[in-house]
């Protein structure tokens, strides 16, 4: 076995669209349409893409918070999708998730200490006086004062709430954390605090991250590997430094060009992608990006490209870079 903690193969999720009097499935949203990736132990893979690209659904599928239509997910050699209840429960202790809006994901009627204590008791990680001690330890780990244990979620600022969300994920001592847009709702100065915290925790606890974000600057800062998603598929994946230094797929290039740079001297006539992201109910034929692609070729509407190696672990699904064997 390799050093990969998580291996995902050909993951697919089609949501039925119901209509008519009898609510029959009249179409399906191809939210995730054949996604494969693996994450080495201790690494951070970022799934990056715009709304509707399927990045959040992919995260949910990995944890089986949403049941996939097909595909394989293997966590440390265990088949997640075929795991029975007991195995899944044990797996979920090792795999945790942090959400974008910590306020919506915290119980407003429970103190932070009560909430963390409940997790510890349910999972039999601590009992009696040890609970309070472990709660204090968790709060300290995420940079919150011990007094935070007696307070309710609404008494915290956005950044502090996200720290609580992180403490909750860490309570069960996981190895793997899915962070779904964890800093998108935060101001830049607070965003930096949380990004630093996530990096520190990774170093101290040896965590592996699947980081989901639309923000390329954040992704660049936190990731070791990046996968760019468009309409339910990964169109390019590479080690982070490679991807940002030499993007290959026209969509990745457009995404990088579109992000505003905080430097007035860099103001330029840049590549502005025309049109909207098409609907995942009826995605374009062939390469899903071809209607917006500046480098479109005659074969693009007909043939969907698979990810092909363009050198040193850098993969792209694009006709321009396809190997010349067909």
């Amino acid at each position, binding site marked *: 076995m390799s050093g990969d903690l998580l291996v995902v193969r050909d993951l697919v999720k089609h949501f039925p669209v119901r209509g008519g009097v009898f609510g029959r499935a009249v179409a399906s949203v191809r939210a995730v349409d054949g996604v494969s990736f693996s994450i080495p132990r201790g690494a951070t893979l970022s799934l990056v893409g715009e709304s509707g690209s399927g990045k959040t659904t992919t995260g949910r599928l990995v944890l089986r918070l949403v049941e996939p239509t097909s595909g394989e997910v293997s966590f440390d050699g265990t088949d997640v999708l075929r795991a029975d209840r007991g195995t899944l429960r044990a797996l979920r202790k090792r795999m945790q998730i942090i959400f974008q809006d910590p306020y919506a994901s915290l119980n407003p009627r429970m103190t932070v200490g009560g909430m963390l204590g409940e997790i510890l008791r349910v999972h039999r990680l601590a009992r009696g006086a040890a609970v309070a001690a472990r709660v204090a330890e968790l709060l300290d780990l995420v940079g919150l004062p011990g007094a935070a244990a007696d307070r309710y979620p609404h008494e915290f600022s*956005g950044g502090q709430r996200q720290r609580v969300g992180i403490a909750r994920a860490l309570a069960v001592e996981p190895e793997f954390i899915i962070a779904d847009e964890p800093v998108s709702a935060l*101001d830049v100065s607070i965003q930096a605090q949380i990004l630093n915290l996530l990096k520190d925790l990774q170093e101290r606890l040896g965590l592996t991250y699947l980081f989901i974000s639309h923000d390329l*600057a*954040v992704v660049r800062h936190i990731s070791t590997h990046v996968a760019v998603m468009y309409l339910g598929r990964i169109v390019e994946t590479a080690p982070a430094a490679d991807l940002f230094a030499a993007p290959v797929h026209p969509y990745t290039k457009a*995404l990088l060009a579109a992000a505003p740079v*905080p430097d007035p001297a860099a103001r330029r006539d840049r590549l*502005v*992608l025309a049109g*909207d992201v098409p609907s995942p109910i009826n995605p374009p034929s062939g390469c899903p990006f071809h209607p917006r692609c500046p480098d479109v070729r005659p074969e693009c509407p007909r043939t969907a490209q698979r990810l092909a190696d363009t050198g040193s672990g850098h993969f792209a699904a694009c006709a321009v870079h396809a190997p010349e064997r067909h």
Partner: protein
Amino acid sequence: MTQPSTNASSDSALSVRGLRTVFHTDAGTAVAVDGVSFDLAAGETLALVGESGCGKSVTALSILRLIPSPPGEITDGEVLFDGRALLGLPEREMRRVRGNDISMIFQEPMTSMNPVFRVGAQIASVIRLHRGLDRAAAWTEAVRALERVNIPEAARRAQDYPHQLSGGMLQRVMIALALACGPRVLIADEPTTALDVTIQAQILSLLREVRRDTGMAVLLITHDLGVVAETADAVAVMYAGRIVERAPVAELFANPAHPYTRELFQSLPVLNAGAARLHAIRGSVPPATAYPAGCRFHPRCSRALPVCALREPPVAEVGPGHTAACWLHCPEAAAEPPAAEGGKGA
């Protein structure tokens, strides 16, 4: 080509003087905007930038007198447009200013449109109201307004309801609506924050195009320094209800003078890609009900002097058209006894 905005105060389209807006809440009086003054020159884009709760949106809403009252109240200051003092106008006249002279677009186009009317009809009704055209002429104008913001098949799209359009398309409709009566000032409150990055690029380039064609002034409210760098001529940085720094855009990014601005830049991942750790400004923004004494940034500032906790910093000129409200830029502060710097840090 961007127009230089050196003479900001001479022919200003909009002047705000000492604006103070408060909200009466259970937790006490929240001073959301506290003595904000600026001039917006004709044709200029001024970005009002800051983090959530700094008062930038309340400033914008106060200019148009859209503050819900109660609990909100504009307690002091003046807004001058075309020599007229807007805060004293009767509501009927104010209604004529909104849309006609000063228009506004919002972050959430979906919640700012009426869901049960066709988008064309919503634009047409504004045109009829403000320009007195008949139904047919107003509809033709509405379609033309949609064409101006590059909506493909504008005549057909005018028949759509808001839910039939994507977020980017709706924001174009909002811009068409705001521009329908040829305003001299456009207030854009986080116009691209809810949009994907490729759509954001389209809307920003549309705003630049529209400004170039019409010569209107834009007050851009944003938290995104990337958007500021790409669109603004001048920038005012807000913190805790006050403008702490103001400068032409190139000058601000090259020589940020206020510690808050500097630390904000240092915390941006995009500018510090190689850094293992980002600079995080310690603590968090104080609540508007309980600002600290002296400089409101001093408890979080890494360069605070003893005087900062005691007295409000005066506004100092630090360069051409560049001002900062900070004791570090006041020579007399240096004459004070040396700071007990080790006390706060670590």
